């Protein structure tokens, strides 16, 4: 077990020493995950809100589909995105397979259902409280969506963070559509997988620690925001 101790020491030195290859991977991870989370929220928040407030034909089917999408195996998503973006695929002409953009797309597809499902829950609860008051003002359910998204912004921010955390910790799909190319599409998770299999434990551990720290920090921020909003906004 001395091996692990030594690796850990080396990992900490990599982190604190500002090892450029490590920080490049970290930065790229953050960039693509942020973009993916943003994209997923852009679609997922309004979609979740829509399903929460509107009674439309096919609403049940939409809910079941969204819930099913929650359980999407990420490698299957990776495979499908790969097929779409590969040279022979329908979107092959874009030439974005094995680029960070491809990673963003795959992550966004995985994160969107999570954002939509969580948003639906929050907005549905909110709508129960707000519905009569808003309808009294003459606000239709559709028109209430931006109001609710804004009024529930602190609760929904934790949804955004959850989406970001999910994107940042994704491996399978990212490996398939990104290709784990050094300096181009190598992100924290795929680097950890690769370095571990190569036996370069210090780098793998160093990245693992950073990833863990990010996830912890996200949760701390989410908690702080809840506390703060409860105190200042009621």
């Amino acid at each position, binding site marked *: 077990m001395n091996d692990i101790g030594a690796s850990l020491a080396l990992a900490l030195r990599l982190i604190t020493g500002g090892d450029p290859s490590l920080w490049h991977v970290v930065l790229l991870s953050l960039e693509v995950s942020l973009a993916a989370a943003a994209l997923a929220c852009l679609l997922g928040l309004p979609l979740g809100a829509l399903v929460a407030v509107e009674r439309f034909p096919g609403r049940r089917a939409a809910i079941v589909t969204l819930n099913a999408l929650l359980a999407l195996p990420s490698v299957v998503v990776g495979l499908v995105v790969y097929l779409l973006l590969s040279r022979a695929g329908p979107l092959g002409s874009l030439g974005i397979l094995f680029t960070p953009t491809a990673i963003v797309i795959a992550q966004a597809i995985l994160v969107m259902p999570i954002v939509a499902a969580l948003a639906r829950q929050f907005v549905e609860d909110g709508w129960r*409280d*707000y519905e*009569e*008051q808003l*309808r*009294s*003002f*003459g*606000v239709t359910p559709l*028109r209430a969506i931006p*109001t609710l998204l804004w*009024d*529930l*912004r*602190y609760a929904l921010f934790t949804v955004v963070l959850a989406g970001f955390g999910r994107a940042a910790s994704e491996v399978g799909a990212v490996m398939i559509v990104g290709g784990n190319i050094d300096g181009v599409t190598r992100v924290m998770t795929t680097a950890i997988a690769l370095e571990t299999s190569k036996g370069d434990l210090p780098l793998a551990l160093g990245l693992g620690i950073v990833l863990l720290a990010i996830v912890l920090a996200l949760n701390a921020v989410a908690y702080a925001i809840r506390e703060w*909003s409860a105190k*200042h*906004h*009621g």
Partner: protein
Amino acid sequence: MGEAMLPLEARALTVRFNGHTAIEDVSFSLDGAMPAVILGANGAGKSVLLRVLHGLIAPTSGSVTWSGANERPRAQAMVFQRPVLLRRPALANIEYALAVNGIGGAERTARAREALERVGLSHLAHRQARVLSGGEQQRLALARASALRPRVLFLDEPTSSLDPTASADVERIVGEIRAGGTAIVMTTHNLGLAKRVAGEILFLHAGRLVERAPAQSFFNHPRSPEAAAFLEGELPWSVSSPA
């Protein structure tokens, strides 16, 4: 708002919630000339009736018409027994209601400020609405509804969480709103408030309109035994829910 809305007519209104009858066969017509107070014990159906009139609940049977038409006119507002304030400052709450009713620009701000002023909350304009005290929230809700300059204003227990001074304030504000040409329809189980404000009384008991009378004659000579018992403070709990 030159819309001809009144009279507001309820015809044979019945409201049931999974078999439980909240309102039964209630009919009346309001011309808005005098403040109408819907009086009754807890659970008598006052809030439900107000919601039906305001168009928030569709009656199980019967109808509500405005000046003979079925369409719900926009120039009406309601202050709920438990108002829902948006997570934004007090002033912004009023501005929101105005915005969704198509009032923008300088007029929106001016009307919102004026409404806040009227309820004595100008100094709290920029405070988050949800952290206001219960009484302040109720006054803000009143300001928000009145800023819409409705032709008819529904008030559900507008003083239930207020101290005596704030209650008196609300009564004064309601009087001002009425003087501005807004018809008032209010529920309460507060006899003092009803006596001071009401032009006429609609007394609900167990979902039924038991008595309707000018306020003075109602308080001096209630015709129904239920109303008499209610005024004596002797209405037994057990009869307040319909069989």
